[in-house]
């Protein structure tokens, strides 16, 4: 089975458990921290992904790492995950949980990719535009990709509006490719 599908099931179970215990917000906060940790600490990422360390050992280490810092529910969840041998898809589970959380709370995640960091006023404007269009609360993520040269792209799920120089150049290239050059000189 694809990791995304497995992750979805784990995430849903965790979400429902958290809801029962009224701990959805803490769960979300803590998972966000884990996401951050996965991004910033290469050691932690490799530890999670490692196929060499036995699952039991991983569970013990996880317990030691998080017992004091995170709520009991999340620590237990991570331990269980390790014991079941599913800790390698932790990044996917976190993502699936966040998707589920946003969906349940009517939040739409959008992303702005730009060549250079954008002013907050522009970001606000984009946010307002999207909110009016989709009639939903918008959580705007920001990403900087110098490859775009200039302009920006707005992503909403798998839909994208390309207003970047890079995209324009790509389109231009396609145009040249389509209309074969005919000698008229």
């Amino acid at each position, binding site marked *: 089975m*694809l990791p*995304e*599908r497995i992750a*979805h099931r784990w995430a849903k179970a965790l979400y429902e458990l958290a809801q029962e215990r009224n701990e959805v917000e803490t769960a979300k906060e803590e998972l966000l921290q884990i996401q951050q940790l996965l991004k910033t600490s290469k050691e932690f990422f490799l530890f999670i992904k490692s196929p060499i360390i036995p699952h039991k050992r991983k569970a013990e280490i996880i317990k030691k790492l998080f017992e004091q810092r995170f709520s009991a529910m999340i620590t237990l969840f991570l331990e269980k995950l390790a014991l079941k041998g599913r800790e390698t898809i932790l990044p996917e589970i976190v993502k699936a949980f966040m998707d589920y959380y946003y969906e349940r709370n009517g939040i739409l995640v959008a992303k702005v990719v730009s060549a250079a960091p954008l002013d907050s006023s522009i970001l606000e404007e984009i946010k307002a535009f999207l909110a009016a269009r989709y009639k939903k609360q918008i959580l705007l993520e920001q990403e900087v990709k110098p490859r775009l040269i200039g302009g920006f792209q707005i*992503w909403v*799920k*798998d*839909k*994208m*509006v*390309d*207003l970047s120089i890079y*995209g*324009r150049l790509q*389109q*231009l290239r*396609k*145009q*040249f*490719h389509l*209309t*074969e*050059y*005919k000698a*008229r*000189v």
Partner: protein
Amino acid sequence: MKGIRPDEITAILRQELSGFRSEADLEEVGTVLQVGDGVARVYGLTEVRAGEMVEFENGTKGIVLNLEEDNVGVVLLGEEAGIKEGSKVQRTREIASILVGDGLLGRVINPLGEPLDGKGPIQGKLYRSPLERKAPGVIYRRPVHQPLQTGLKAIDSMIPIGRGQRELIIGDRSTGKTAIAIDTIINQRRTHEDPDDEPVYCIYVACGQKASTIAQVVDTLQRYNAMEYTVVVAAPASAPAPLQFLAPYAGAAIGEYFRDSGRHALVIYDDLSKQAVAYREVSLLLRRPPGREAYPGDIFYLHSRLLERAAKIIDDDEVAKQMNDLPPDFRSFVKGGGSLTALPIIETQAGDVAAYIPTNVISITDGQIYLEPDLFNAGIRPAINVGISVSRVGGNAQIRSMKKIAGRLKLELAQYWELEAFAKFGADLDPATMRQIERGRRNVEILKQKQYSPMPVEEQIAIIFASTRGFLDNVPLNKVAEYEQQYLDYLRANHADVLKRLKQGELDDAIENTLAKVAEEIAKQFQ
């Protein structure tokens, strides 16, 4: 080289870019999860349709074949290089289709309609037609009633093919399957030259063939001036598997353009066993469950939906205009009375016609032409086994004069095959049996035909007449070919009117007498 002026360059650039739109569109983009073996799994693209074309970052096109819960399976139609996990995939909102039109004639294209012959873009008005299109329904068809002359004596006399029929050519490797197809294409030249006949346009689909073989076929067609009414759709063995399995559909789409505009087309699928193999490859890579011989469950449907598209369309224009699943581009020119004839080719392994794919295609088609290596090696070429070859509907399309002659030929041949076994022992046979065997040998001899020399139907009738009426009985076997040559030369020179009437389907006593007289006269020279 002439000097180039900058302002000219600017003008050309501007013209080339005149279609360029500067405003941004809403694009739908997915992300590659996994890529390998010509198949990509893509996340996102939630609104993509099955069969839609998508485009990867590196310009490679793909077709969506699997829609799953959280990802889609895409087969790549080109280079895999440059596509990696996380690459973006864009929807094109276009179902896999091909641009068809008269400009395709004389060209060699790939299954996506892109020219491969280096003669520049396809000229003339082009119409978009989907590769996968439903076959016309029952009320838009009429039974086959016009002949499609292959120019081969053995086929036109005993296994006649009608316009709109599907006749399978089946046999081992190098038994002359492609040769029959090529001869048939070459023979369609007559339909273009004869003002009384309706021209037949040809499409040769090379699927999984060696590129050198395809080049040879194109060269042959050019040499016999057959390319000007032929389109070659090439997906050589080096092409990605998806292109190979789409090639016959592209050929059918081009054929449908002629069919729906009230014209006649002949499409040759060379060969469908390789197409099945290509489809099996794609299916297994997409993890569809394998069945018998590891072919997927819908392998029968793969061939039946393709061959069902061969049809004879009803003459009534008004009814034809209502045809199901007409592409919008076609509406302007739809006419009745057109036809699409299909000659699929299947290669068997060591004569095994009971294998999965051969039995499937045999059951779909309206008859089959069996080619046998034994006959081929015995010098009987085309190596058609007329005993087990059949044409289920072509009889209705045969011209009357040929029908009269052919019945007798079939009977005599059947008797000959039965007696031939005895003759081999050199046993003493009574004169009547001996005569039958001698007649049979001559009949077999006149059915032999050189490659690339299709014969007009009236001449076929004349020579079969001479043989079945026994005028060749005293001509030595090794002189039969020479006799045929002289006999037909004489008829062409002195009795053109008789040949013309034969062609129109007439065969009365007067004609028979003339033919008999000539046949006898010439036979005397060989005794």
